């Protein structure tokens, strides 16, 4: 029997088996950012309903329910932070909010985070947790992939570090855009990471998928992530890479 308090103290990692349970954005920020260093930006941004989308419920009702459930306005929290003393722009997704799906708000906030990192020459760290693009925003959600990647491409050309952390789950349009483009890509143990949902893939080939398919270790083996890092070591590992890249920069700033 696992007690929530015990889990929380260990950042939602099971002390017995090492299983990584999902971690909300607030806790994730507490895990990664130096104490009291995080200042949220664009906190009030919410999505409008560009398509007036209705399935079994209207989209605005789904947003309202997700806001009540998660305590966030949408599926990502962004802000300025310091990681082991190094100032960064940090974006953390929260799977609790409509499966971490990427609509206009996720697209806009991460794009602004990348533009802020570009303007201030600060590294960008993005923690992904998402089922993919948000269907309720149709092609506008799809275009967020190009929007975010455009901003990341500028960051890349400017020589400013971008670290991508993949957590459970990171799939669909999020993995097929910004999450796969980090200078360094780290993944949490056991995280589900893939382009298409395992169900779709299994239906496509009409057979069961091998054990461990689309898990973080599978991606490591196939060469698509740099390291699988346990949550308890994540902060120091990020700090190590940021420190290494920082040394390479001119004048202790990230070069243009």
């Amino acid at each position: 029997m696992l007690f929530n308090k015990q889990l929380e103290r260990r950042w939602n990692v099971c002390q017995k088996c090492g299983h990584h349970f999902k971690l909300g954005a607030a806790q994730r920020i507490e895990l990664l950012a130096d104490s009291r260093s995080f200042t949220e930006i664009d906190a009030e941004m919410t999505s409008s309903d560009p398509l007036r989308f209705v399935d079994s419920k209207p989209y605005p009702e789904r947003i309202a329910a997700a806001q009540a459930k998660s305590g966030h306005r949408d599926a990502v929290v962004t802000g300025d932070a310091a990681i082991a003393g190094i100032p960064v722009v940090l974006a953390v997704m929260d799977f609790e909010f409509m499966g971490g799906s990427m609509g206009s708000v996720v697209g806009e906030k991460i794009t602004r985070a990348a533009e802020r990192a570009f303007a201030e020459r600060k590294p960008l760290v993005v923690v992904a947790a998402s089922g993919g693009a948000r269907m309720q925003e149709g092609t506008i959600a799809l275009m967020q992939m190009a929007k975010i990647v455009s901003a990341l491409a500028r960051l890349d050309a400017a020589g400013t570090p971008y670290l991508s952390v993949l957590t459970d789950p990171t799939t669909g349009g999020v993995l097929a855009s910004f999450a796969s483009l980090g200078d360094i890509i780290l993944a949490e143990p056991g995280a589900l990471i893939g382009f298409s949902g395992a169900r779709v893939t299994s239906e496509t080939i009409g057979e069961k998928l091998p054990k461990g398919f689309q898990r973080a270790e599978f991606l490591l083996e196939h060469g698509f992530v740099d390291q699988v890092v346990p949550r308890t070591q994540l902060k120091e590992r990020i700090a190590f890479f940021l420190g290494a890249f920082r040394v390479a920069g001119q004048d202790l700033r990230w070069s243009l």
Partner: protein
Amino acid sequence: MLDRIGPLRDGAKASLEDALGLGNARRVEKNGHLAIEAGLITDASAFASARPTAWQAVQAARHIGRPHALDIIARAFDRFQELHGDRAFRDDPAIVGGIAELAGRPVVVIGQQKGASTEENIERNFGMPYPEGYRKAMRLYRLAEKFHLPLVTLIDTPGAYPGPEAEERGQAEAIASSIHRMTRLATPIVAVVLGEGGSGGALALGVADVVLALENATYSVISPEGCAAILWRSAAEAERAAEAMKLAGPDLLETGVVDALIREPAGGAHTDHDATAAAIKTALVAQLERLTRVPIADLLSLRYERFRAFGAIVEPGTEVVQAPPMPWWRRALRSPLRRGRR
């Protein structure tokens, strides 16, 4: 070569609008562009009551007799020489590409290729590329940039292939990288959605300066069946999902995802491949004629702005912010005569 993109240079918009021939109707008239403009639809209200339903568009876009990439390349382009392989794993038959001439101008053309029969479709994997298909495309993007050739992409895919081998070889990474390359590719890019614009697998060829679509083409974040299965818990609700996702031509004009629609022959593109290809050719020639006159640095800034503008957000103290219903880049595509002198 360009190594950074700054904010949009003062006057870049003006230089583009100038290059687009606005305010210079007579020149446009002389070299025949007037007729070209008449074939493009830039305003959803042009459909009035004849607006097709989303499901009609889905079916037309998937019609097996619809002209596919090679049908269009054979008719709209000259002297096409196909180039094969990604130089890493294999040649993906679901993506074709090479060098061709468009009205005498050498270009790189890349398209997703569906089959016209079941057998052909099996060979082409129903137009669903593997990662190596996108890596082949990226190799050709680089050729285009290196040799200053404009790039034309023809989009027609249900989506990138979702099989286990595709996952093993990094489908998501290939799509992400393809999008990344296109955002900064230093050459003019025009994309045309021929049939199905299926999600990320379509967008991987779709980050262009001008995005056109055939009248009955669709562009969507997920297939109607996939959306229905998730949100309605029944693939049978695909028709409703298609309607809700606003994936048909007029919707795409309204959201700005597509800049202009190319008219199909009466009865649909499948009834007349020659006429369809001719309409696409005229549109491509006109757009490239314009885009190649814009300085590359401006073009890249404008490409950034084009995709930067998508989003529908609300922030306190601001009105509802949406992509403008008629962004300036689409205004610039409209008939110079209708626009009049600046």
